[in-house]
């Protein structure tokens, strides 16, 4: 087990290096002016430009810029072009909202994905399965921003309930419980809309894996022992087909964070998705580098934890 963990940690360190390279060079190698005010503004003198280049190390060679940016990122010195505040601080204050959104979306994706997947697999090939599979592809095919708009229009037109942000502003809450309910209500809708694609993807994984497991010999044995179908499905088959669900989270997380950009923009949710979109609009290089790096590193960390947990539970994995 120790050697497995050490090996995984070494690979992770290599990956962190690759990730830092990608997040730096995707931003600096793309042609285009680094100045937030554009290249051709005649009101900006050469001295101002030179000072700007010096301040953000743009006059250094590429490898040195990479080094300075990464050192700045890890020591917390890297500052935003927009307001001069440390990038880590700007991201740190936005992270909790996005984490809450994504954790909820993952829980929703996993639970509905599991329910739909198991039900489909048990009815494989018959009409409930066919209908559900068309339905999952429909969820994948829904443009997130479009369905969000339709839902917002629908709810505000028919119920007139406040939806945007993290709380209903200007409302005085009589107690903490109602304040929490308000927070939950503001979280529920964006999280569910964010989770649509995840539900579809997870249900497909569970279905495929469950169908495979249901064809195994030990399932036939379990049935032959006279166990009822519920026990066979949920106790024998489901436990052995849960693995793709857990590995699936590794693929789900980047998709969710990507989707957060649009969902957070629409729902005025103060997370890193909106911060990223603003940074894109402002051409804020340091923030963009840090955001790309940190989101990828979070996903990497999640995968590492999942792998280690997995190896702890299932000894076969350690030998891979």
């Amino acid at each position: 087990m120790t050697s497995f963990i050490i090996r995984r940690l070494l690979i992770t360190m290599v990956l962190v290096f690759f990730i830092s390279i990608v997040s730096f060079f995707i931003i600096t190698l793309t042609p285009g002016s680094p100045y937030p005010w554009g290249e051709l503004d005649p009101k900006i003198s050469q001295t101002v430009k030179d000072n700007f280049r010096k301040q953000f190390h743009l006059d250094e060679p590429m490898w040195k810029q990479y080094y300075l940016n990464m050192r700045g990122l890890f020591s917390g010195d890297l500052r935003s072009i927009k307001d001069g505040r440390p990038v880590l601080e700007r991201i740190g204050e936005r992270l909790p909202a996005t984490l809450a959104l994504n954790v909820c979306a993952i829980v929703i994706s996993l639970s509905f994905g599991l329910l739909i997947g198991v039900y489909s697999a048990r009815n494989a090939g018959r009409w409930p399965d066919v209908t559900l599979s068309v339905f999952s592809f429909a969820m994948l095919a829904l443009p997130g921003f479009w369905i969000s708009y339709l839902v917002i229009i629908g709810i505000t037109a028919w119920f007139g309930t406040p939806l945007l942000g993290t709380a209903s502003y200007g409302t005085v809450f009589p107690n903490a419980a109602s304040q929490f309910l308000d927070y939950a209500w503001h979280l529920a809708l964006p999280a569910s809309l964010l989770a649509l694609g995840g539900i579809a993807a997870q249900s497909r994984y569970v279905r495929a894996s469950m169908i495979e497991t249901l064809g195994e010999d030990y399932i036939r044995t379990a049935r032959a022992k006279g166990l009822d179908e519920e026990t066979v499905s949920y106790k024998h088959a489901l436990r052995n087909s849960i693995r793709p669900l857990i590995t699936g989270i590794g693929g789900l997380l980047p998709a969710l964070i990507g989707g957060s950009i649009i969902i957070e923009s629409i729902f005025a949710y103060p997370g890193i998705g909106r911060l990223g979109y603003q940074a894109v609009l402002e051409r804020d290089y340091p923030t963009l580098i840090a955001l790309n790096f940190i989101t990828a590193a979070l996903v990497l960390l999640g995968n590492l934890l999942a792998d280690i947990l997995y190896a702890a539970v299932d000894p076969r994995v350690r030998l891979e």
Partner: protein
Amino acid sequence: MKDEFLSPGQRMMQRFRRDRIGMISTGFVVVLFLVAVTFGTLSWLDVPFPADPNLTSLEAKLQPPSAAHWLGTDNLGRDVLARLLHGAYISLSVGFVAVFVSLAIGVVVGAISGYFGGWVDNVLMRVVDAIMCFPTFFLILTAVALLGPSLLNIIVVIGLVSWTGTARLVRAEFLTLRESEYVRAARGLGQNSWAIIFRHILPNAAAPIFVTAVLGIPDAILTEAGLSFLGFGVQPPQATWGNIISDGKSYILDAWWLILFPGLAIFVSALAFYLAGDALRRAASSKSETQ
């Protein structure tokens, strides 16, 4: 029943033809393709049919669907139906060309990785792992925004970022196929590695690659729509499904038709591609899905 010999490809087509959902969705994809080609040509020849997609008319702005404008008009009085039809080829070309770019990279990387194995495989797969950690949409948004949004940039960036899945799949196929007898025979006959990779192994991995390609098209279409929504899609006045919604979002409470119809177009087309791709996948896998 007559016992006839069918090649694996013919058997796959036979299974595909029996798949009702697959046939309906493929039919829809074909219609979509014809619409895109027809109206793309009309657009190129400047034929204003059913209306000029860029003709503005301030008297006719924000009109709900009527006999004159079946799907209503936008804030500049442009006909939404005409814009949808003339924008179809942009959405489809983003889908097709971006998938082509990602396939080209993914197939080469996956083939090299799977065929040669060893440290080459190790390095390439770690690069794939690293790229897969990134939230793809954010990476694409960043690159497109910094490059400047144009049709070509969007296509290239989507292609450059989304090849990792294909690379993994092709690698897995190559790992199994390189042990097969015909590959050993080819090697024994002294064929070089590239001939074995491209002439002998690749054609046998064609079916799963084709399936991922079909399933990649709606992903690219949806990504372009999302970029358009954030203002980094194909730029106006060129109509695309994404930017009709994006322009219409300021009027959501007054002009629902500006949001509803282009969104439906994206949704239904993406769904048709997904269902057709999934039916192909079912047809390509030799074992029965239902067991």
